[in-house]
């Protein structure tokens, strides 16, 4: 008969093995390949090289590094604005909706469950030169000629991604606000704090873990985005993720693409490490 202790390996070994083979090993492999000099076919014999050629090339190409900075900036803007818009929704759900909160929560989740590509496409259709906004304005006679500049810009990418993320962004903030002890707010009121000061000095600080979790939940997928910039970004809205993808599809330079990906990985891991020091994220999502 299999005892409790003996069962542990059947529980722990499969997920460990799965994660090592399909998560740790590929990332290590990408790091290895980023240190190769040539783009030629890769075989096991010549896997181990220690050339920093690709990294030198990246450091010597300011436009790529600028693109990384731009993409990080866009992702930060998307994360900040999605959080800002999601906060009142979460606040409403946690403090005002009361017994109707479950229904309002579901109403919020339905757009989130809608296909990601479809939501991106919706904005392409909305913003396009012959798209819904322009054709609607022409149809009702507000304008004669389509307004340009709506689609294929950084702004289009940012707006689309904020739209995509708002419903998800509300969830961690809602969870954090639900855990705010109502007696703290009452105590603050008894001590003479007005509504404004209670909000800024009690509610907001207590919701910070949720806010930070949200910022990262939005920032990480956004900084590596290549699908949305491809569909609505045009040349202005080009992002670092699209550059990486290019080296694997059209350009076919895996070592260089890997080096670009490794740099992005380092940036996100460093940011998460810093955040984990500031706030206990595990408490925020649990």
């Amino acid at each position, binding site marked *: 008969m*299999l*005892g*409790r202790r003996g069962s542990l390996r059947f*529980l*722990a070994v499969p*997920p*460990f093995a*799965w*994660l090592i083979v*399909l998560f740790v*090993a590929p990332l290590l*492999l*990408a790091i290895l390949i980023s240190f190769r000099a040539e783009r030629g076919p*890769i075989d096991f014999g010549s896997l181990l090289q220690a050339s920093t050629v690709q990294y030198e090339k990246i450091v010597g190409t300011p436009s790529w590094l600028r693109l990384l900075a731009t993409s990080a900036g866009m992702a930060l803007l998307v994360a900040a604005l999605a959080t800002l818009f999601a906060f*009142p*929704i979460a*606040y*409403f759900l946690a403090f005002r909706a009361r017994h109707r909160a479950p229904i309002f*929560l579901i*109403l*919020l989740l*339905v*757009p*989130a*469950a*809608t*296909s*990601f590509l*479809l939501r991106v496409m*919706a904005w392409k*259709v*909305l913003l396009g030169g*012959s798209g*819904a906004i*322009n*054709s609607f304005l022409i149809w009702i006679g507000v304008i004669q000629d389509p307004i340009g500049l709506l689609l294929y810009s950084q702004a289009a990418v940012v707006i689309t991604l904020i*739209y995509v993320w*708002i419903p998800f962004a509300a969830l961690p903030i809602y969870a954090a606000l639900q855990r705010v002890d*109502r007696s703290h*707010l*009452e105590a*603050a009121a008894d001590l003479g704090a007005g*509504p404004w000061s*209670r909000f800024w000095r009690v509610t907001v600080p207590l919701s910070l873990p949720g806010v930070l979790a949200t910022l*990262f939940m939005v920032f*990480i997928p956004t900084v*590596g*985005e290549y*699908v949305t910039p491809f*569909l609505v970004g045009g040349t202005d809205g080009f992002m670092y*993720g699209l550059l*990486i*993808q290019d080296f*694997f599809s059209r350009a076919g330079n*895996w070592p260089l*693409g890997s080096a670009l*990906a490794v740099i992005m*990985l380092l940036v996100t891991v460093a940011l998460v490490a810093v955040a984990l020091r500031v706030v206990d994220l595990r408490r925020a*999502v*649990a």
Partner: protein
Amino acid sequence: MTAGMRGVRRDAIGVGHTRLPLGLIYAAMLAFLYLPIVLLAVFSFNANTSLSFPLRGFTLDWYGQVLDDPALLAAARNSLVVATVAATAATALGFAVSVAVLRFRFAGRRLLLALAAAPLVVPFVVLGVALFLLFNIFGVPRSLLTVALGHSIVALPYASLILLSRIVGLDPALEDAAMDLGASYPTTLRRVLLPLVGPSLLAAWLTSFIVSFDEVALANFLAGGDPTFPVFLYGQLRFAGRLPVLIAMAVLLMTGTIILTLIANRLRSRHQ
């Protein structure tokens, strides 16, 4: 309204008074979230290839064409297969992670927990590149299986979080009792823990299924000649004339996903 009633109401809402019309802000936000989707759905019934105003009249042609498009239907079927495999793997692994982490003390416990959550902090393009290289170098041809393997990794954090938060609330004494009565540990897991976790297991599976079914950035790197629906959609979106048919198909699938989300949400909230 009497002063006493106001007092009760104030306590119940945690002194959360503000003059901001929060309900109105919420309603405006919902309108902002729904409008683009509803607009697309409207265009999928519009008798015009171009998605623009004025509307030209009601048609079901686009939905009819969905049924006549074998490549489209094959891609949708592929997505069902991939999401089913990925969700099953992620849920089984997430259950193993949760039980191992919550019911045992062992050397790699914290590492296992960290690893199971780690895919959340890696951008998909990076993981996509990494898995692409792995499969290439080991000579694994890209296929629906490689997509499903990739998706099992990105769904694992979600499945684990749902199952961890369910199992953490269950009393381990129930399992101790079963074992005292002579059940082996595997039997205890199957006959005691699994039924107790029950609906959360389904919630984890449905959440993983939805994550996989909608995923394009990773799948785009890992799919071979046989695309999943999002990969197919991504490839076809540049052809403007195809848009209404693609949107009709997406609306159909979206309806399915929404129903699954509602079920997953109901299971999770009722159970916790």
